[in-house]
């Protein structure tokens, strides 16, 4: 598949998830139970991107020791829990990562 075809298919599926419910839904199709479960979608999906990006190194193997990303991510998470700020979480994580790889 060419890059452009891939981009267009990804665009289509993204658009359809936005459009389907607005265009087709009848209220009774979505009960509280389904709403409740769907509210967990971010918690179920984002870690699948976060964890491998932190624990799996560039050569594709699991790295627990000598891995500054783990410490930086923990610092970012703690800052995030206390401040509830998206921007503070990102920048505290990046700043600690840079501190760990360039200064120490």
């Amino acid at each position, binding site marked *: 598949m060419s*890059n452009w075809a891939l981009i267009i298919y990804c*665009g289509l599926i993204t658009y359809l*998830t*936005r459009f389907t419910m*607005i265009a087709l839904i009848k209220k009774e199709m979505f009960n509280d139970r389904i709403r409740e479960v769907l509210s967990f979608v971010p*918690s*179920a999906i*984002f870690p699948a991107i976060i964890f491998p990006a932190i624990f799996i190194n560039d050569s594709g193997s699991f790295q627990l020791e000598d891995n500054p990303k783990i410490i930086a991510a923990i610092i970012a998470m703690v800052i995030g829990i206390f401040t509830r700020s998206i921007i503070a979480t990102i920048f505290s994580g990046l700043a600690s990562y840079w501190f760990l790889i360039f200064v120490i």
Partner: protein
Amino acid sequence: MKSSFKIFLKGIIDVSPLMIPVVPFGLIFGVLAIDIGFSPLETMGMSLIIFGGASQIVLLQLFSGGASSLVIISSVGAVNSRHLLYGAVVSEHLSDLKLIWKIIISYFLIDQAFAISNEYLKKNKNNNRYFHLVGGGATCWVIWQSTTLLGIILGSAIPEKLGLSFAVPLTFLALLVNDFRKLINVVVIIISGLVATLGYNYIPFKAYVIVAALAGLVTAIILTKKNKTK
């Protein structure tokens, strides 16, 4: 009744604070896409056609890991399933609109616009209240496209050893800050993360995003059920 333009402006003002993190997110996307080997035109095309930060980053992540197109597309679909929830929630406010407006608004139904307009739509009953959602979505569109472009331009100037790709997990981590305080969410986060990490090399076709997400959702279904029967 308030004019549509005023409601549109209100949407822009309300969404503005949420635009601060979009700036680094867009820059990182542009830089990474060029780094991975997409052309500037393809990178811009992704932001214009897909217009979804999480979808685009997942596309890059899996593409650079050598996943097949089918896995990439279905993973993007899985990441986007949260929009079904947004659509279901706002649809009751849009049910009287013409189809053409539903088609336009769907393109702008993004996390940030949903977050602010959901509140507004609940509190206001004007017929033209949906302009709030369009205002928020259009603001994010302008920022997303311009930061992508800036990222493309900066792409070659930013040294690789800065480790900017680490900003990807950080951005997603930041989107979960409100969930770390809820026990069921924390369990779901850990299960999904463990399945993805341990399965990274063993789950075929790089389908670890889908498998981990399903494991997380099943965990959520079981835990929320128990909670209720108590």
